Each structure stands twice: as structure tokens, then as C-alpha cells.
């Protein structure tokens, strides 16, 4: 059995289920899949943006925001994603 004739338990071919790459390069079709996945996540980005706007707006009215401090937080938390 070759890759292209393999199928999932319910009989759906791997390629039709999105699990197998199109013939040719492994990376073919990847940009389209990334765009599709990011679009599906849009509500989360909206929640993050809404919280950031409301939260930073509130903080600026209660003592102000130190840009250097906020950058420190951002860098510290970004580092946790990759370290």
C-alpha cells in the first residue's frame, strides 16, 4: 500500500482528510493551511486585543503605564514561549 492509497479508520483517504501532503513538495499547501488555522483563531486574537485595550486603558488611569516596564513583561513572557 502506498502513501496515497492509505486511509483513516473510517475509510477517508489521508489526503482527503488533510493528513497527507499533495504530491511533490512536503511544504506545498502549507501557507494555505497556516492562513486557514490563523483565521480559525481570530476570536482569540480579538479577546487578547480587547483585554489589552481595556486593561492598559484602565492601568493608564490608575498610576500610568511605564513603557519600559511593559516591554520587560512582554520580553519576559515571550522568552517563556521559546526557552
Amino acid at each position, binding site marked *: 500500500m502506498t*502513501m496515497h492509497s*492509505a486511509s483513516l479508520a473510517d475509510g477517508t483517504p*489521508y489526503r482527503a*482528510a*488533510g*493528513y*497527507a*501532503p*499533495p504530491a511533490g513538495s*512536503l*511544504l*506545498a*499547501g*502549507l501557507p*494555505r*493551511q*497556516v492562513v*486557514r*488555522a*490563523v483565521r*480559525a*483563531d481570530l*476570536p*482569540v*486574537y480579538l*479577546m*487578547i486585543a480587547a*483585554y*489589552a485595550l481595556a*486593561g*492598559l486603558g*484602565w*492601568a493608564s488611569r*490608575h*498610576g500610568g*503605564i*511605564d513603557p519600559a*516596564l*511593559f516591554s*520587560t*513583561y*512582554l520580553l*519576559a*513572557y*515571550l522568552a*517563556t*514561549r*521559546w526557552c
Partner: protein
Amino acid sequence: MPMLTLAATLVRVVVFVPKRRGLMLRMMFAPHRLGRLLAGCLLMAAMAVWQGTFTTVKSALVTAVGGFPADRFFADLEAALFGVDPWRLLHGPSAGSEGMLRLAELNYGILWSVAMMAMLYFVATSPRADGLRLRYFASFILTWFLLGNVFAAAGMSAGPVYFGAVTGDTARFAELVATLSATSDLPFSAANLQAYLWQAHVGGQGGFGTGISAFPSLHVGVMTLNALFLRELDRRLGLAAFAYAGLIWVSSVYLGWHYVVDGAFSVAVVLALHPLLRRAFRAARA
């Protein structure tokens, strides 16, 4: 986390898949999965913006509220419920055990962070979590907002280890502070972290995880939330996650970070929020 997953995937294929490794690798790195992985990594990076905002708000809350007025109320409440300050009940059986203290510190300080990030990473990047992703992130963000901002402002307290500093009564939890100092020369000790947070608070400095507020416990709230979602994926995994959330609750009191009521309130809020969001998402989909 992405590097760790990549390494684990390769080891899994090489060690546990004796035949057709090429097919397995092509399946694992198919555009569908890689697309989700890259989008998930982007989402995790965006969460840093949310987390940076959360820490900014958390730090500003103390100024807005005017200090930590609720510590005495929570300490008296739990002492009335248990007949004694509960940390004494927990330290009683293991009095003087540096090993137990060390285990609790490493679990609470490090393993908890790894568990939180691993769950976020799994939900953000795994196709298995496709049906849960939006609801999990909505629950996660709402839990942090409600527990860490709204309710924290309503019951602003610093926690047992800071009780002396915020109330002037240094005697009440002095023994707890002295017990915790046994490991202060070791990395990631609770005593060192508590000193770091207090110095950052007093000096108005920012950094990783800064901002002090005990009520309600986000450590307990987040692990309860994870347990509820894991139970939807795998019943046994969910039960283990609930046990872990319980352990975190006990550790939070053992290490002097929280009063018992901090964890109890968090569990109640998360348990109430979970079915509400589930219903709301189901209705939105219908």
C-alpha cells in the same frame, strides 16, 4: 516547547515505529498539522501581550485599591474554620522536613508553570484540540481576568508570608516564614521568590510574574480549569489533573503563598464558569 515537541515526535517515531517510518513522518509533518503548529506558535506569542497586560493591571491594582486591606479578614476566617492557622496542620506531620519543603517548592514554582504552558501549547497547536480551542482560550482568559483582576481587587490581600509586612503583626506567621527560610540558599526556593516579589512590589520594578495578590488563587484556578478540559478528552487524565489541582491547593497553603479560602473560591468560580461557557459555545454553534 516547539523544540521539545519536535524532539519527542522524532524519538517516538524512531523508537516505537519499527516499519513505515517515512509514512509516519509524512503524516506527522503534513501541511494540515504543520499549519496548525505554526498558527499555534503565533497564538502562543500573542498570549505574551495578554500576559504582559495582565501583569501591568495586577501591579496597578494594589495602588488603585490602596494596599492589602483584606489579609486580616482572610487569616481570621480560615483560623475560625480550622480552629488554628491551617499551615500549622500541614507542617505538623512533616515538621522540619526540608525534603518535603523542597518538593513542594519545585512542584509549585516550576512544575505548575510547565503544566500550564504545556496545556496551552497542546490546545494551541494540536489538531486533537480543534473542537476545544476557542472555548479553552475564552475560559483561560476569562478565568485570569475574573480571578486575577476583578475578584483580586475586591479582596486585595498579600498572603500569609507577607502578613507581617502588610498588617504590622509580624508574630502571627513568623514561624511559617522561619520554616520556609530553611531552603533559602537553594534555587527556586519559595522564600527567595517571595523576597523577589516583595522587593519588586516595594521598588515598583517589573519582571517575570511580578505583582502580589493572594485572593483568589490563580495557581489553583488554572489547574482546575485544565482538569475540566482534560476530563473532556480523557476521563482518567482528567481525574489525575483534579488530584494535581488539589495538590497545588495544599502546596499553596503549605508554602505560605495563600490562605485556604483563596483556593476554595477559585475552584468555585471555575466550576461555575465552565458549564456556562460550554452552554454559550454550544448555543453559538447551533
